[in-house]
């Protein structure tokens, strides 16, 4: 059989031997100018597309995007390892973490919101994870980082990163939400898009050591212990009290996030993961855990992250992020391309467990239908939902309402305010309303 001489195992010439001399020169001597030409060619195409209509142009003959072969079909692309650490396409540059103008005065004590409007599925890309820094963020040398456990333990211990990364490890996907997420909307509509209404929310796979293992390793005094204090190594020395019950359940001392080490903005090299609990308790740059028998009343438990009620009292230690959901497309600040079919998509989550159901309304909450929950549906993790919808060109108010595995149903803004007033700042888990106007623009509204 003639074909046998081309059978498996025969060495083929490597592709570079088929390159033209010119292309080889570009590769070998001036890779940068080669890349630059490739990029310039690509951006030239983008420019042409941007100057024409947004929608595919077709005349009687056909779409130029089909008929005129673009540079990427007729030229040579960039080589491997052109970027040792890959970055998103330049055409995705619109999706950035952003600050909300006027919210804070100094960037080192501020928050940047994740662009939820552009995310798919449930995992937040590490580089777009929301940020909250109290006194700036650091890139800490992991060889110099130390983690201490002291207090009501038999053997106070110090662990290096080497130590921690040898210990029994677990990986879990969980959401992290700032207690103040959607906080600007307690009184009225304040911000335009889902990035700013709900963007202090992210969801990652975390890898680390179960805190229970470490507490056992230090010989925790379970008769006396009731709370733990977690403390950060940065300037703010962030400190939060955590229930021992939580601490022994699913709390994790984590170094991994989405398959790589934590990002500096998110606490590299070590942070606490406290599933279901507000982000402020997920202490970054974790340096110490103290086991104690009463809550600590740290600054962020006494002056901030306390929810002001109508009677003038502040609720302290409101920790759990309750059942919540939001439609991410179509959402505020977006414009629909046309009438007709749309996939309505969004995310739902609960600090008490799994998402059991998400309902969607297109008429401001008069009528509801079940949305499709996409798998996986995990404990204290974002769940993606989708729903078919046809926009008929007239006003519509889109809402989503989540129910969790404990039977807790997401309330309306009116229901929340009836109990908690309008000045709480924290823990606003109200149903979000997006008005799709007859002009095609979607805007943030509140209804009653």
């Amino acid at each position, binding site marked *: 059989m003639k074909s046998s001489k081309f059978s498996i195992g025969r060495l083929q010439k490597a592709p570079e031997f088929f390159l033209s001399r010119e292309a080889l020169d570009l590769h070998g001597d001036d890779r*940068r100018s080669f*890349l630059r030409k490739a990029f310039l060619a690509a951006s030239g195409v*983008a420019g042409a597309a941007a100057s024409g*209509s947004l929608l595919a142009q077709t005349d009687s003959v056909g779409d130029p995007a089909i008929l005129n072969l673009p540079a990427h079909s007729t030229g040579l692309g960039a080589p491997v390892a052109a970027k040792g650490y890959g970055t998103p396409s330049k*055409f995705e540059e*619109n*999706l950035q973490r*952003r600050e909300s103008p006027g919210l804070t*005065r*100094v960037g080192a*004590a501020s928050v940047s919101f994740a662009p939820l409007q*552009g995310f798919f599925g449930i995992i937040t890309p590490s580089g777009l994870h929301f940020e909250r820094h109290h006194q*700036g963020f650091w890139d800490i040398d992991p060889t110099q980082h130390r983690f201490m456990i*002291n207090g009501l333990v038999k*053997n*106070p*211990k*110090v662990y290096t990163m080497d*130590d921690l990364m040898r*210990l029994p490890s677990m990986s879990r996907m969980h959401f992290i939400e700032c207690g103040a997420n959607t906080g600007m909307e307690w009184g009225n*509509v*304040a*911000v*335009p*898009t889902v990035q700013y209404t709900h963007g202090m929310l992210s969801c990652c796979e975390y890898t680390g050591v179960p805190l229970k293992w470490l507490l056992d*390793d230090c010989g925790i005094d379970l008769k006396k212990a009731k709370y733990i204090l977690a403390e950060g190594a940065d300037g703010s*020395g962030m*400190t939060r009290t955590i229930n021992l019950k939580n601490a022994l359940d699913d709390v994790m001392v984590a170094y991994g996030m989405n398959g790589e080490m934590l990002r500096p903005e998110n606490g590299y090299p070590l942070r606490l993961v406290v599933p279901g609990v507000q982000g402020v308790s997920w202490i970054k740059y974790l340096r110490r855990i103290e086991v104690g028998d*009463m809550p*600590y*009343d740290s600054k962020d438990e*006494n002056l901030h992250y306390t929810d002001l009620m*109508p009677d003038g009292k*502040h*609720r302290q*230690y*409101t*920790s759990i992020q*309750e059942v919540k959901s939001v439609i991410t*497309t179509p959402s505020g*600040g*977006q*414009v629909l*391309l*046309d009438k007709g079919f749309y*996939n309505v998509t969004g995310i739902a989550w609960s600090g008490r*467990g799994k998402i059991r159901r998400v*309902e969607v309304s297109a008429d*401001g909450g008069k009528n509801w239908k079940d949305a499709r929950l996409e798998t996986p549906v995990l404990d204290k993790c974002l769940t993606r939902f989708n729903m078919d919808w046809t926009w008929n060109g007239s006003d519509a108010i889109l809402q989503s309402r989540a*129910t969790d595995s404990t039977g807790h149903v997401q*309330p*309306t803004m009116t*229901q929340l305010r*009836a109990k*908690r007033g309008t000045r709480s700042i924290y*823990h606003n888990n109200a149903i979000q309303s997006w008005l799709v106007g007859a*002009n095609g623009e*979607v805007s*943030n*509204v509140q209804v009653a």
Partner: protein
Amino acid sequence: MYKSLSSGCDARLLRCAIARVRLVHVAFARLASIASRTLLFVIFANALTTSAQTPGRPATPVEIKAWDIDVRADFKGLPPGSGSVAKGQEVWEAKCENCHGAFGESNEVFTPIIGYTTQQDMKTGRVAKLTGDTVPQRTTMMKLSQLSTLWDYINRAMPWNAPKTLTTDEVYAVTAYVLNLGGIVPNEFVLSDKNIREVQAMLPNRDGKTREHGMWNVSDKPDVQGSTCRNNCDAKVDITSRLPDYARNAHGNLASQMRLVGGVRGADTTQAAPVTFTTPRPIANSQASTPAIAISAKPDPAKLAAQHACTACHGVANKLLGPSLKDIHAKYRDAKDSVALLAGKIKAGGSGVWGAIAMPAQGHVPDADIRAIAEWIANGDFK
């Protein structure tokens, strides 16, 4: 048994045989479990006697003392010491006033510390102005219910740009000064570990906190439950709040904050909203304004200044902790070799030129970045 299995092929017998084998398995499993438990016990006992068995090492008393700085609500952890209001004012004017104002009233950088508490509040232990909408924003003193919180926070996190640099007595003194600004202690007061509990009993909002709610434990009952109505619920739907037209572009052009493809585009908020439906115009892509390739692009000094936290203390046009970049430019633009001069100052840090607050040395910032930032300031091209 084996005989009947091989010769008979009787289904009933087979089931019986399987059951017996299972019984044997169970018995073995029990034995194994007891054995492994004994083994575990041995290993555990071993771990306790020789702590080198698990990674990590004992923390020394000196190490624990160095890091265990928290002061709890019952003042456990408070080190002995004292500080006067007068001393506190000295420290305040040197290290705190720039951000918080001379009287702790400033709203320039952070929210105000002082304001809206009364002598009557000190009697009741509740701040009256926390009910109703009578104040523009809550001050620290309105919310503070534990004096330990104030002491601990100043000790661990202040001054903002140089945390953990105050002495214990300075922390007492600054705490005393803040209490004095709040009208809680008199001018000649000296706060110490001996009298701090007495001052705690005078705090205006000492009884202003509650832990009665359903959000501490997963098993707690939520206080607000949503509706499960699915059809013809609440017949009327009124829009009660929406962004005013003047705020349309307050968050920048939303068209440049959405993806270029998909079923939707970002709204062009530089223009008024269209009255009727119009196919969205092409997106103003933020990409268009940035260089096509990062490889050859010159670093943006404004981004570098943000990245290295220069702008945490130096506003471009406004004074924060340090002088504004425009002021620095004005002072040094005509200096000889101003770029090298500024680069040197950034790298080494310094004090006494613009006020009492020292600028920390920035040796960790790469020289190329320092150079780019220094050029930027020297040229004054802030846009």
